[in-house]
């Protein structure tokens, strides 16, 4: 233990010496004559994680369009619209949710680009709205005994016009790979604000929100390819 404490002091000794290197000179700030302009415009794309997930997972299908619009050096208005269908298979129930969603919000680019590069490490928030319906395809009453076992009940019950509202925190990256062509990846943490549940059942999956956990939270993931239509350069 004392070895670590000693080395910690040794380390701190060096840090002190740095604090003395403050420049006091009244040097003339020369304006850099070269200003690197970056494009402003509308960026449109698709989330390709959804088709990948659809092909890996038979119980899911979905499609998502993404768009953002740069309003200042660091701030973008961002939106995603999409469709999702998921078959949720649990021990005692089999249900399908399907519907459309929209997410709207802002992204803040925290990355300082070199020269005229145009990459992003961003954080953002979204408001999400999902309109969906959920069908209980079949269920088995949980009677938990073998003396009078229960049977699978194949009565399908659909509840339409369900809505979900939520907020999201997003963290992600975007990189310009070819001119005006961007690839990006992001993860989001979602908090449910309100949701309709079907009568005598529960919304187990909401399009755009993903699986709904008991705590009313969810996770999302998105991998995008998008193209920037530049309007102007600033």
């Amino acid at each position, binding site marked *: 233990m004392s070895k670590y404490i000693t080395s910690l002091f040794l380390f701190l000794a060096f840090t002190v010496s740095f604090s003395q290197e403050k420049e006091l000179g009244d040097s003339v700030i020369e304006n850099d004559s070269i200003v690197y302009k970056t494009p402003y415009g509308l960026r449109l794309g698709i989330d390709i*994680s959804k088709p*990948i997930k659809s092909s*890996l997972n038979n119980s899911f299908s979905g499609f998502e369009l993404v768009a953002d619009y740069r309003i200042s050096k660091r701030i973008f208005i961002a939106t995603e619209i999409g469709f999702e269908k998921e078959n949720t298979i*649990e*021990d*005692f*129930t089999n249900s399908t949710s399907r519907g459309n969603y929209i997410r709207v919000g802002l992204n803040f680019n925290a990355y300082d680009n070199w020269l005229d590069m145009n990459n992003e490490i961003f954080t953002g928030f979204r408001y999400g709205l999902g309109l969906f319906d959920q069908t209980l395809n079949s*269920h*088995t*009453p*949980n*009677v*938990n*005994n073998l*003396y*009078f076992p*229960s*049977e699978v009940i194949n009565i399908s019950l659909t509840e339409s016009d369900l809505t979900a509202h939520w907020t999201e925190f997003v963290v992600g*990256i975007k*990189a310009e*790979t070819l001119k005006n062509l961007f*690839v990006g*990846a992001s*993860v989001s943490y979602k908090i449910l604000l309100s949701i309709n549940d079907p009568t*005598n*059942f*529960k919304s*187990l999956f909401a399009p755009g929100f993903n*699986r709904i956990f*008991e705590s009313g939270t969810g*996770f999302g*993931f998105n*991998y995008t390819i998008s193209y920037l239509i530049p309007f102007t350069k600033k």
Partner: protein
Amino acid sequence: MKRIIIIFTLFLSVFYSCEKDDFCTKNPVTPMLIIRFYDNMERSNLKNAELLSVWAEGKDTISEYKSITKDSIAIPLNSTALETIYHLKINSFDGNLASNQTETFTIQYTPEEKFVSRSCGFKVIFNDVTFTTNNNWIDDFTPFNLTSIENQSAAHVKIYH
């Protein structure tokens, strides 16, 4: 670009490793019928049913209630029917086959499904419950009717014998 692919694969693996994380911890969600046996003379005293065997009409004896001596039992109700007929055999004299006494205890009800949770699914509760018996060794019981059996935290029927 290479770095992005690595990060993407990492994200994807995290995404797909999200497997079923909750198990039903509320079991049993569908209540069983709980019967307690009391002395018909001293009605507040529990009285064992001697060498008790329990079986439903047309079924084998429930394995845990095969010639046992107990003062309470928990038996399942048939959720796919409107009644369950139970036969309760006791032998309080000598254990000989000839001195078996068998009671026919009938429970009539309306089953109803109620959603519990994602992992537990639907439970079955029993509404408008009526008990009837042929008074062979059972002298009396209480109550005769119940509005519903929703849980098994307390005895549903007291049987006096």
